[in-house]
Structures are given as C-alpha cells and as structure tokens.
C-alpha cells in the first residue's frame, strides 16, 4: 500500500501554493511514495532501546547571550528581494490565510 495518496499530494501542493498538473500529481505521488517507503525502512531496523530523535548530535542547551551583533545594512538586506518599495520587501498579496 502506498505511503502517500494522490489526494494528500494535491493537498500539500495547495498548502505550498504550487500549481501541480494532474499528470504531475501522479508522478509526484509515486516519487514521494518511494522516499517515504525508504524512510520507513529505518523504523524497521530501529531496536526498542533506541529512542526516536530529531537531531543527529546529542546536544542540549546551546544558547547565545542577549548581546546585539551587527545587522545587515538596509541596502544589503533588500538586495536579495525580488522587489522593494519604501525600504520594504514588495510581494504579491496573499489572501487565503488572513482577511
């Protein structure tokens, strides 16, 4: 059985605002399924005594002190913007998530 359905791929595409064609949905569902199945195989070899982890290094409590560092200049900050206006990043309106 597939690890991800065609409908789930369509849902993810919508959440990510990606325009995916019907043909692509079939193709991506197949590709994503291979990836998920591969990841799932890791779970098969994990023994009881190995707790699940989200990190590859066994570290905790890595902090920085609350001391200001130098920020980018406004020009540098905006240099990578697709478009800028009045020192702000200019982007198309996004309507769905907020009224």
């Amino acid at each position, binding site marked *: 059985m597939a690890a991800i359905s065609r409908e789930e791929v369509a849902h993810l595409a919508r959440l990510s605002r990606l325009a995916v064609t019907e043909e692509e949905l079939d193709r991506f569902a197949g590709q994503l399924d291979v990836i998920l199945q591969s990841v799932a195989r890791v779970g098969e070899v994990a023994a009881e005594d190995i707790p699940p982890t989200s990190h590859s*290094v066994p*570290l905790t409590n890595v902090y920085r002190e609350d001391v200001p560092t130098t920020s980018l*200049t406004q020009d540098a900050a905006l240099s990578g913007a697709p478009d800028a206006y*009045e*020192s702000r990043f200019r982007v*198309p309106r996004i309507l769905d*998530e907020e009224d």
Partner: protein
Amino acid sequence: MSYEEILTRYEPVIGLETHVELGTATKMFCGCKTDFGAEPNTQVCPVCLALPGALPVMNRAAIEATIRIGLALNCDIAEWCRMARKNYFYPDMPKNFQTSQYDEPLCVDGYVDVEVDGVTHRIGIERVHIEEDTGKTLHVGGATGRIHGATESLVDYNRAGIPLVEIVTKPVPGLGGLAPEIAKAYVAELRDIIRSLGVSDVRMEQGSMRCDVNTSLNRPGEEWGTRTETKNVNSLRSVERAVRSEIIRQSGILDGGGKIHQETRHFHEDRGDTSPGRSKETATDYRYFPEPDLVPIAPDAAWVASLKAALPEKPSTRRARLREEWGISELDMQSVANAGAVEIIEETIAAGASPAGARKWWMGELARRANELNIELAAVGATPAQVAALQKLVDEGKLNDKLARTVLEGVVAGEGDPAEVMAARGLEVVNDTGALTAAVDEAIAANPDIAAKIRDGKIAAAGALVGAVMKTTRGQADAKTVRELLLERLGVS
C-alpha cells in the same frame, strides 16, 4: 433580549491565548536588535531573513524569561523540550514557517487567581511556550489598507524573530454572566505579573501584549458548544466587550436553531462587535515537526529552582500591602495599577513625599500628560525625586497648588528641578506679610462698597477682595492667608 436573560439559558465557556513580546535586547535566534520604531529592515540579518545556510541559536535571556513567566504562573517547567516548525504560506515570515513549540511546551499546567467583586476565581493555565514574532505587512494598492482590494504587500522584517511568549488558559466553564469581567481581570492580572518580572513592557496599545479570546455557549447540562476565536483584541476593555458581544451573537444564532461555525473572528474596537475572518478548517494544517536546526532545551533543575526562589512578590500581594500602607480604597489602587503607576508612586514616597501627595501628581497632571502624548509615565519628563521635591515645597507653603502646577510644567519641559524652576520663573508664594498687608489694604481702598458689606457681616463678599489681591500678587499669594488677613484688617475675624 437582555444579556442577563441570555445567561439564564446558556452557559459560556471561555479560553484566552495571550502573546507577550519579550523585552530582550536581541531577537530569539540571532543578535539583531529589537528596538521599536527603527527604520524598516535595518534590524535584520541572514538568520531572521532566512538566507540559505544561516543557522539559528537560541537567546538564553528569552528562555530564562519564559521559565520565569511559567514559574510566576505556577507552572511545571519541562525537563526536556524542543522547538517546532509551524509551516504556513504567508510573507510575514521569510522562512515560510514560524519557529514555535508544539507538543512539548516549556511550561505546563499552572494557574492564575483572579479577584472580581471580592471573589477569587482560579484560571487554569494549559501551557506557556516560546516562539518568535512575525514581520509587519503593509497592504497597498487598495483604498482601505486592509488586504481586500490590495494588490501587493510591503514587508518590514525588523519584528520578525523577536521572542514571543504564548500563554494559553485551559477552557474556563462555570463563570456565567461574569465571564466577560473575569476574562478582563485575568488579562489585567497576567499583565501585572509579567510587568513585575520585568521581562516585557506588556503594552496592549503598542502590541507588546496581544490577546485572542475563545468563546462558546452551551445549554445547561449539555456538552460544550462550538467555539469561535476572536482576534485583534487589543485593550483590557476590548477583552470584556469581545466576550460579551460573542455571547450575545452566538445566543441569537442558537435561539434561531442555527449552528455556530468554528472560525476566527475579528474584533472591531469602534463598533464593539466581531466579524468573521478565515474559517478554521482551512488554516490549521501547519504540518508541525521538530526543528532540526535547534537542539533541545533541558533546563537545569538547580537553575529553575534559583529562578523560582528569586521571583518577585506577587502583584496581588504587593497591591494589598501598598493599599494598606497608602491608606486608599481598592478602587483607587486599581486605577493606580491600571495607569502603571505603582512603582513610580512607590519611588516618589521613598523620595520623601506623602502617599497622597505622590498619588495626586502622578495620577493627575502627569498621567494626563502621559495619556495625551501616549507615553509611559516614566517617560513623562519628571522623576520621582522631582515630584517629591515639588510636594515638599507645597507642604512647606512655598508653593500653592496653582503655582506648583506651573512649576511642574517647567520641570517636565526640562527646566530643571522644582527649586530651579521656581527661582528661574520667579514663582513663590508671597509670604512677606508687609507686602501682603499692603496689597490687602489697596484692595480694600479700591473697593469701599464691598469692604463695607464685609464689615456689616456679609463674609461671603470677601471672595471678590481675595480675588483682587491674588490678581495683584500674580497668583503668588496663599488664598487662605489672604482671606484671614483681609478679615483681620476689616475687623471681622
């Protein structure tokens, strides 16, 4: 349909989510400054702009502040927890996700006791977690500034990444018609607690404290109803009004046999009611997962214990103590607290003023000025020591009330301490009896008719002559002294 009548048929359940922007010097995951009002996009760096390869590192002061808030709200502090990515598509975060916490909050299971009309209500705290604020979007191209009709958005990322603490209550049933007032009292108490910790300026009107209010109704004995979440509630008064208006609106729908939709609603300060926002179902798919770029938080038990031991006196305890010391009513104490004047009045008393004197200036002239300029009392331009010195001059009879106000204006305008302003402006109560007697005699001579009336026992007529003397002394005499002197000269004292 009256509000009281609605509450005989429905029981409200409320819940509050409060966001508090921490007052750290730098952001949550990078060293960019957090100064309010800086030029757009000048407090940003590769981390908070999400440039490829940039890696976040947590701000120790923000973690400490969150733990202290949790402890002050009687929470358990997690021994181990992680940050999580909350994914969504909106340009206010350049990462396309917000770094937050999901199923492993830093603080859980606390409570706040809230007093309304002499009765204490315990509000359960579900969780306190740390996350980051978003950038500010400005919608342009439309007429209204709202996104509808706008063609594009302009984004300033200075605020993106500023540490934000979210405090979520458990659902609170059983409050009945008092639900709106208790909701307001809870937010006020939360604000006072956080202010006492010194970790945020908690100013609702400036957005450093923001509140979302959940409300549902059910008929007695039935299961809890579907809740709505009202956003944009940005003052204490609005918290109360938002709950009340939702109770009234929802009861109308239920009475008509309708159903409540789970949705986000927006509160309108001007109208005092809510309107629908986005529907909840389409927005909650945040695909949370543990943040791989940040390591887990595992607060040392000894550190947590030392933070707990060093917590300040609870605001409610402190208010009760100060109220006693100052000899004022609960209502007066409440307005002092609401004005954020507790500390500054305390300092003024420590500097030598009487409680009544200190309260009079800070809650009167200075509070008015702070309101007009929309600034904190502390920024109004007078220090506790100056206000104490001013009150001392009044107590010593060197200034009357009117002159003291003028002197205070000078102090606030930066002309120096009260004594300096007095000297520079030549403001002092005329206490020289010789000069006063001359002024009184002059007034009597200039108004023989009135003087005669007073001599005949019409004491009430004295006001006119006192006024005349005050005029010739340019308000620098003490009216009471003038009156006594006048009656004495006319032989009726």
